[in-house]
């Protein structure tokens, strides 16, 4: 069996469920739209241009920066995954979703959004998405983010229930790959999210309500980063799922190896979380030995991405050659660049090369002191979450929205142009940010109005502004294409199934890779690794040092 799904011949999701999945994802697009608008203002600020007065609800730069981070990095990504991953699981297992759970996840997400929009738009929560205490936001902000996580738990539980039901009826059968990697991604998130769950529910929410008078800044920061590095893989893995299991089909190739793909996702489950201290290399209060250990683990979690680079490019090459491509690299031209879904994702992979390299530099222990909290960091992560993920999710949308609405994609050529605008934009933007960062330009700073500057920042700032403008145009074109597809796309002309690939090397029935399906066991190993990586710190540090009252100086 080479298919990555059960019942490859066809499976129809009920119309009602498609509608709910669609609306979950639309919420993500609303968030993305709001986030992008603020991002434009921030990019221009680096170029010395202040356009904040054109934002009617905005009282300051950092309020907009909070909106940008929360909307793009949290609501957009999780709304998408909350719809997309259960959909893939359902399709892969050929079992319909549970309508009440779709409702529950969607409405929790809606309430989460309303609370956070209230807190942020009234300037009660301009603490940036990292929510570092003792800057104190209004309780609606913390509660809204807790509910966002709850909505993702409902989506995760939904997938576990589907998989459990399927396994009961299919004892001894290998889990279809597409279901395995979808479930593994959110299983990792369950473990990763423990940090912010404890921080928000145990400390920040009661503190914002006045139940706790003081809080512990270092402990909350550490709990945030326990979740905060793994969360970037939660954003990334839906993109990897598409690159592994869907894009090969779209380019006419195959997924290279089912066992290796499963192994990569198990490695992400194991290694994503015990790495958080590499975000705290320059923090006081954490021993350098623990930091070095997390650095080592971070190099470890780079490895499954290396394996991904090989597998995905091999799939692409196979597709390119099947389409008549030749030569060492000339097959790249034969890939279906005129398919907007493919073009967006190929460009996303390309920018991710630079995102990965700069990420490894960040993880490099003492080297981190050169770049920490400079503009280099947003330069880096706009090439990971800001393009590898964002562009891939846009690329997926170009078949997913037609599939969910049963409408033909509107403006195919415009959609192709969209991803080029965005890619060229992000590369120029990141070039600006990265060079500015190496030249000492801080991140998270209203550069246009700063009391200090350096002459040599002018070029870096200008590139950031120009690149950010192109990115904004690219993102707006995305909304035009998706909006017009929903409104005017030809009815009845959408794709009838998702583009799942077949595997060149399928799952075995009796070799080593059978053990990979024991997700419960791997989850326990992952818990053990987190205990090893964080245990010594907590043992030496607890009880909490409740030293800080709340500060609302934003």
């Amino acid at each position, binding site marked *: 069996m080479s298919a990555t799904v059960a019942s490859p011949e066809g499976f129809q999701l009920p119309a009602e469920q498609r509608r709910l999945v669609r609306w979950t994802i639309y919420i993500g697009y609303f968030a993305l739209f709001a986030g992008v608008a603020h991002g434009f203002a921030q990019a221009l600020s680096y170029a010395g241009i202040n356009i904040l007065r054109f934002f009617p609800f905005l009282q*300051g*730069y*950092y309020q907009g*920066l909070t909106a940008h981070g929360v909307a793009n990095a949290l609501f957009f990504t999780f709304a998408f995954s909350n719809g997309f991953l259960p959909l893939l699981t359902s399709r892969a297992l050929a079992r319909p979703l549970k309508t009440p759970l779709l409702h529950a996840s969607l409405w929790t997400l809606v309430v989460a959004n309303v609370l956070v929009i209230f807190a942020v738009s009234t300037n009660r929560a301009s603490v*940036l998405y990292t929510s*570092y205490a*003792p*800057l104190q936001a209004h309780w609606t902000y913390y509660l809204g983010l807790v509910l966002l996580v709850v909505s993702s738990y409902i989506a995760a539980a939904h997938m576990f229930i589907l998989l459990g039901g399927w396994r009961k009826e299919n004892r001894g059968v290998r889990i279809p790959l597409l279901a395995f990697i979808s479930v593994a991604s959110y299983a990792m998130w369950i473990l990763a999210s423990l940090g912010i769950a404890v921080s928000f529910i145990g400390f920040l929410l009661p503190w914002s309500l006045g139940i706790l008078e003081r809080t512990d*800044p*270092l402990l909350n*920061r550490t709990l945030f980063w326990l979740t905060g590095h793994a969360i970037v893989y939660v954003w990334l893995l839906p993109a990897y799922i598409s690159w592994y299991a869907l894009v090969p089909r779209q380019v006419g190739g195959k997924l*290279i*190896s089912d066992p290796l793909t499963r192994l990569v996702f198990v490695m992400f489950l194991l290694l994503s979380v015990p790495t958080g201290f590499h975000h*705290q290399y*320059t*923090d*006081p*209060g*954490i021993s*350098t030995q623990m*930091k070095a250990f997390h*650095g080592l683990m971070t*190099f470890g979690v*780079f*490895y499954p991405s*290396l*394996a991904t680079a*090989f*597998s995905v490019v*091999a799939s692409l090459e196979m597709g390119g050659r099947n389409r008549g491509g030749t030569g060492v690299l000339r097959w790249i031209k034969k890939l279906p660049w005129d398919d907007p879904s493919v073009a967006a994702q190929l460009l996303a992979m390309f920018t991710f090369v630079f995102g990965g390299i700069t990420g*490894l530099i960040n993880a*490099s*222990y*003492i*080297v*981190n*002191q050169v770049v*920490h*909290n*400079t503009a280099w960091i947003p330069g880096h992560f706009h090439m990971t979450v800001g393009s590898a993920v964002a562009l891939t999710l846009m690329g997926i949308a170009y078949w997913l929205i037609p599939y969910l609405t049963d409408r033909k994609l509107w403006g195919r050529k415009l959609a192709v142009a969209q991803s080029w605008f965005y890619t060229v934009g992000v590369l120029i933007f990141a070039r600006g940010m990265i060079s500015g960062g190496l*030249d*000492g330009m801080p*991140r*998270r*700073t*209203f*550069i246009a*109005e*700063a*009391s*200090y500057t*350096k002459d040599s920042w002018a070029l870096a700032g200008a590139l950031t502004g120009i690149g950010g403008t192109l990115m904004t145009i690219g993102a707006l074109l995305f909304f035009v294409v998706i909006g017009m597809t929903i409104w005017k796309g030809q009815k009845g002309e959408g794709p009838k199934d998702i583009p799942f690939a077949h595997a*060149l*090397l399928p799952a075995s029935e009796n070799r080593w890779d059978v053990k990979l399906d024991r997700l419960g066991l791997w989850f326990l190993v992952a818990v053990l690794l987190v205990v090893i990586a964080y245990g010594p710190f907590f043992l030496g540090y607890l009880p909490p*040092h409740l*030293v*800080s009252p709340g*500060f609302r*100086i*934003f």
Partner: protein
Amino acid sequence: MTMRIERYEKAFLGVGAGMLVIFLLALGFTSISMGINLPGRAGEIDPASVRAIPPFNNPGVRELGPGRYEVVMVASAWAFQPNEIRVPAGSEVTFMATTTDVIHGLHVDGTLVNMMLIPGQVSRNTYRFDEPGEHLMVCHEFCGVGHHIMSGKVVVE
């Protein structure tokens, strides 16, 4: 076809693993042989009484010995104290810093002086300023509405 891909894959992953090991060895070597360190555990302090506790009751630059200086720094929204530091070229300078209110950052442009200042914790790291010149010093963690006016300078004479 499958076999050939598997062979290439082994080679790719082998070279990748080797590369990561070399990077790690290089990092370990530079950290140990060149004495470049990250900040670690350097003590705890009550943020509300920072200004009463030595050495933070007397922020400033002091000479510890020939070519060795200590900078005791207190950060609060939105200023560093001291905000101008003067040391002779070739000095080895130990920064001891903390904050009285929210999280701040301390970054001296063009150097490895890059640390977080977290309420309740003392941050410490040492850096050798070899060349004369002037370095911009900024708070590089968001600390409220005045974050972008929080800066100073280090002058190496």
